[in-house]
């Protein structure tokens, strides 16, 4: 009985580990709800230079590993002249989104970094 309990625990642990690995779980910031970019839409115009300077400075301060694995950068607007910049970083098949949100005066008011999902190439 003792052994069965022991093996049962092992089995549970093993299955949990399998689930974690195969579903790509990791001990990282959870996906925020609501989506921090809810209400924003893609922005195709020229960004204010203050925003450009700020997000480029943010990128410069990323770790070398993050810096080297930036997949793409995109800009957004919410219709009230608030802008956002999203920096997508892919690290070991984990997708990290860094969202920088700016107010109408182009000052950064929020920085959100979270795992949005995973990839398998």
């Amino acid at each position: 009985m003792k052994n069965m309990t022991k093996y049962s625990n092992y089995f549970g642990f093993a299955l949990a580990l399998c689930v974690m690995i195969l579903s790509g779980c990791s001990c990282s910031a959870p996906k925020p709800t609501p989506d921090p970019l809810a209400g924003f839409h893609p922005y195709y115009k020229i960004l204010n230079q203050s925003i450009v300077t700020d997000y480029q400075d943010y990128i410069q301060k990323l770790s070398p590993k993050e810096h080297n694995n930036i997949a793409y950068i995109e800009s957004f607007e919410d219709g009230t002249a608030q802008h956002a910049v999203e920096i997508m970083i892919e690290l070991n098949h984990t997708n990290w989104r860094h969202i920088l949100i700016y107010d109408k005066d182009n000052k950064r008011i929020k920085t959100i970094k979270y795992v949005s999902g995973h990839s398998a190439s």
Partner: protein
Amino acid sequence: MKAKFIITLCLALSGADSFGHDQNVHRAITANAEASAYVHSSAYADFLNTISSDFPRLSQPNQPRSATNSIIKGSNNEDFKQDEDPIGGYRSLNHFYDPLDTTTYDKGLSDSPPDRREMVGINSFKWGSVSNSVGYNFPGDIWPLNFGRNVNTSNIWSWPNARGYEWLGLTATNQIQRQTNLDNMFRAVGQVMHLLEDTTQPQHVRNEQHLDSLGKIAWESPIEDWGNANVANLNYGDGSMLDWRGAGFTKLEDFWDRHLYNGSSSAALNADNNENPNGGLNTLGLAEWCNGNFLGARHLYAEYYQTNDIRYYPYPSRNTSTDYKQTSVNLALGIQPLILKNGPQGQAIYLNKTGDGVTFPDQSRFDYFGAKFPHFGMITINDNNVLSNYHNVFIPKAVQYSAGLLDYFFRGTLASTIISNTLQYTTLVINTSGQSFSNGTFYIYEDDTNAVRTLVTQTNLSGTLANNNGITMIFSNATLSTNNLVVVYQGTIGTDPVESGISLAVGALNLVWHSSFEFGAVNSTIEAGNHLPEGWVVDFGDVDLVVGAADGTAYDGNWFVDLNGWVPGGISTDVATIPGQSYTLGFAYARNPGSQDEDIVPQAQILANGNLLGTVAPDDMNDWDTRADLDWHTASYVFTATSALTHLTFQSFDTDGASGVLLDAVSLTPN
């Protein structure tokens, strides 16, 4: 101990976890392919030129969204799993294409641990070539956990979906709608490029499941690991683009599989190898090429398996594709330094690929038992030399084909001219795609000053419109406000069943045809056979594409051309014209001040359809400091068009050296 066993068992039975090239490798392949296409594909460059007011080609810090950004994004996102992409699901289960599979598994992934045959995903061509392609409902393994489960998925980033986005990107009323759809179109094209690129990963064309998220536990892909670790130093090729027309490709499937190689012999592999890299009629689809020339990590030489084994593929063959027969009896022949990350670490015995298609050294390495018992010939590809050589061969191929795929997507091109009179415009729209149009409609749109796009007129195509033939569209000019016009064709181009009725061609439509060589990337010398912005081709020698933005030296815009690059060169383009109509060809020219040091007065000839219109020979004592100092002149010639396309040529004449006539602001105006 038991726990380890259980974990291993679970993982071994856990179904699908497929990996092709790593995402960073895809991003790099795609970026290089886009750059190659921009240099070699006038169709792609023309498309970018036409949409430039809505969507730029390159990202800038203050404008990160661009064509290249979206293509690379697509190439990256094709690998999303279901937690990132609930619609597409576990996308990479659909990233396999086995060209030799003739079973009901239909060329898709059907290798489930431990190498048992089980349908897991649909093949990558089908996933990428059908509108909203429906994925295979894979229930997963190990009830009740259903590892690898992938059900109710579909692909909204397929090739036909890209065409849908393109249509809206060209015709939607509001600029933001057009931009959003162009963004989606480029992303979808990038996702299809990813699928094609994965066919250069041997495991993806030899139905070889791999489970990389398990790390070193089981079935890790050494190919992916090596590419990932060496992405910054991979060989991305010579910047060339697959000549799919020269190779006889007529449909999207040809990029994957032309069905020339069926495994019965190596003839198709050899025929392909004798023609590459430039392409010829024996050029294989990428999946065929990779399947027959490379080994997977477990699906190795044909001699190791029974023909009904899931791991069996007829080529490469250890006995006929490599120097095994010589090496197995004289091991010294195969001895080479074993190169690890920190340098040479002893020696190992390698088999070189010597036949049956591509040849290259170190296709595989004898493992310990192989070296001990060479007549068994046990080998591995998990070796730095082997994987380095693999990547040296298949990554340039991925770039080349991926660039060709971009050219294929944007192959629909139009040349248009418009002649005004007081009541109406008569427009001649010519198919310059190199393939026939059929079952389609031509549309002319106008943008107002707020970039609102409205339909001016449309004309159905009756029957077929062959290449270099045109149709006439007539409409009242009273309805126009800006004359900022674009012409779009939607219908069939060529005979690709994937695109029936949804192919698109686009071109700007101007009252006066004008070209000032804008939208260059960097100052560069362009050699014969390559193109310049706005549809120009270098016919001989080379020319310099020069940006004068910094000191304002261009006559018009920011860019101009020096007709002498390192040597005299000539450029030409085709412009739509009305036969019998009189035109004035105008342009600006100046002396390259460097010619003064060479004591040369540069000359250039101007020709229309091969007939000499005149020669210019600027002899000013000028300099580069300002536009005024460069002392631009203008000239014009009148001629009567004799054909629907007039071939305009500007060529350096009797001018040696690297300093020729500078050319800008070429225009063609109906008289």
